[in-house]
């Protein structure tokens, strides 16, 4: 099937009907396996048992950045090609990405208190993730503030694209500035620095979170398509009632 065909809303609906349950089942299996292996893995030699938070914090952080990247690509689709499915994809990614970004901030804060002695610090990594969360909220606020979904989608797409500059800042903040947050230990040019007993459950858990994101994203896109169809039918019904 050509890739362009998948962008057809009708074909998308058919594909989503198959993919949503498949990704949901995969997510349940992988997250359960990742957490079981994660709790069986040895405690960290410095952080002790607190390292268990890594198996939910790190996947949430990766998905915060991943969902924003999806939103920025969708924004390009909205602004350049004006494709309605791109607009729908962007809106769905914003809602779910905001939830994962919230989880990243909260679990990080709970990890930080025993490790750094504080729930919060105006550190480059923490601050740039907070900015990412505020960008998500800004995009969602714009989508809700403008009644016409096409105009709202274009306004939100501009903000999403401008805000994308923050994504590399989040990623490299720990390298560019002095930070209390540890440096990257998985996605490094010289390979991961975590022991395999912790790396394996982390990657399995991250794969599960990704599958969950895909299931939720497809489901939210499907809902948004239905919502737009409802809106169109209501407008048509109102117009035909006026014509009588």
């Amino acid at each position, binding site marked *: 099937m050509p890739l362009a065909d998948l962008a057809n809303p009708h074909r998308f609906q058919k594909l989503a009907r198959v993919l949503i349950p498949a990704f949901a089942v995969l997510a349940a299996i992988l997250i359960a396996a990742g957490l079981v292996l994660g*709790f069986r893995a040895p*405690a960290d030699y410095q952080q*002790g*048992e*607190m390292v*268990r*938070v890594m198996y*939910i*914090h790190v996947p*949430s952080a990766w998905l915060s950045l991943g969902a924003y990247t999806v939103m920025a690509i969708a924004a390009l689709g909205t602004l350049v090609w004006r494709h309605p499915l791109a607009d729908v994809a962007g809106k769905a990614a914003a809602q*779910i990405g905001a*939830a994962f970004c*919230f*989880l990243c901030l*909260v*679990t990080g804060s*709970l*990890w930080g*208190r*025993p490790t750094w002695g504080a729930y919060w610090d105006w550190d480059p990594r923490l601050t740039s993730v907070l900015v990412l969360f505020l960008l998500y909220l800004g995009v969602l606020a714009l989508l809700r503030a403008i009644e016409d979904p096409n105009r709202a989608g274009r306004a939100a797409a501009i903000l999403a694209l401008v805000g994308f500059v923050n994504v590399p800042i989040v990623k490299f903040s720990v390298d560019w500035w002095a930070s209390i947050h540890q440096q990257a230990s998985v996605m490094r040019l010289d390979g991961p620095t975590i022991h395999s007993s912790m790396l394996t459950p982390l990657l399995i858990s991250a794969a599960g979170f990704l599958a*969950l994101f895909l299931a*939720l994203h497809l*489901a*939210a896109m*499907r*809902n948004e398509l*239905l*919502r737009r*169809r*409802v809106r169109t*039918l*209501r407008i*048509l*019904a109102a117009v035909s009632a006026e014509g009588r």
Partner: protein
Amino acid sequence: MDLGQHAAFIIAAYAITLLVLVGLILWVLVDYRAQRRMLDELESHSPRRH
């Protein structure tokens, strides 16, 4: 399993994650049912297309 002296922080992190993820799942399910119901209602009142 002994989670040590900081067990409360670990449990809180997992509990909040569970709450948010279950919330997300419920949100898409409830929203789907609501949109489907409204669409079915509107389509039953609108003239059929041939």
